[in-house]
């Protein structure tokens, strides 16, 4: 889980000191934990849930769970990594209760093949110069909207593996599915996302 490590890292000493204050029930320490990690975790929940209200609920649920469990935190992971996992779980829990309709199929977004194994209609090549989404708001919104079009079971795996950078095993554990299922869904999700982006990124004729 490298994403959790992208923020400026507190030293092991300051983390131990914060942990000791949390365990002692120090009010200011709880506020400090939320201030240090809240915005990053809210971004994680927003990505998974796409609803500001649900994302805030998931972050709140996650912090409350963490506060209750702080005495059982064993310090074999970083606090930020542990919180990241808890908020992902809280977000997925919300996603499960929210899901009402059956998942749409993504079959039409996957490559199709002739009986001899050749691909049907490979489509035109992509432009060689694609801007960096960090620099291009238009591209960023296109990618975000395309990810949002994926059915939840694919979108969750894509976000956890490719964006939150959980391992296959970690993703399987939080989604309660087999590792092989994660691999299959990730591959299908990337292929479907590729197909959704392709019409916008092909080279001019």
């Amino acid at each position, binding site marked *: 889980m490298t994403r959790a490590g992208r923020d400026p890292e507190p030293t092991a000493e300051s983390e131990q000191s914060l942990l000791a204050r949390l365990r002692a029930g120090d009010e200011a320490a709880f506020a400090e934990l939320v201030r240090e990690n809240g*915005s990053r975790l809210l971004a994680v929940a927003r990505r998974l849930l796409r609803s500001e209200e649900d994302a805030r609920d998931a972050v*709140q649920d996650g912090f409350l769970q963490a506060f209750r469990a702080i005495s059982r935190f064993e310090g074999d992971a970083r606090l930020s990594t542990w919180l990241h996992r808890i908020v992902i779980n809280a977000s997925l829990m919300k996603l499960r209760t929210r899901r009402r309709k059956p998942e749409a199929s993504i079959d039409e977004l996957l490559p199709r*093949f002739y009986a001899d194994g050749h691909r049907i209609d490979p489509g035109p090549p992509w432009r060689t110069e694609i801007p960096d989404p960090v620099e291009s708001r238009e591209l960023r919104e296109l990618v975000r909207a395309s990810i949002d079009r994926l059915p939840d079971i694919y979108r969750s795996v894509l976000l956890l593996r490719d964006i939150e950078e959980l391992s296959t095993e970690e993703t399987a554990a939080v989604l309660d599915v087999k590792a092989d299922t994660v691999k299959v869904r990730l591959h299908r999700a990337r292929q479907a996302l590729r197909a959704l982006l392709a019409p916008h990124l092909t080279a001019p004729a």
Partner: protein
Amino acid sequence: MTARSLSCRELIEYLAAYLDDELPHEERGAFERHLSVCPYCRDYLATYRATIHLGRRALAAEAEVLAEVPRDLLSAILAARAQG
């Protein structure tokens, strides 16, 4: 013994495993031999990689927008904790 050859369908099926370096030696060789002669599959591999990259960059940029936790969320969390 003839070296195993892959179809485009098989190559695309093995793509994620190839990128994760999880293909057994023999399949990896067959994969790379197919790539060396098939521009369509080279193109698919390149755009599949680009898709992963675009997703990462797009969402990484979004995450940086928020500088600090919203004050009302911080208050709500601390109030909920105080209520036990």
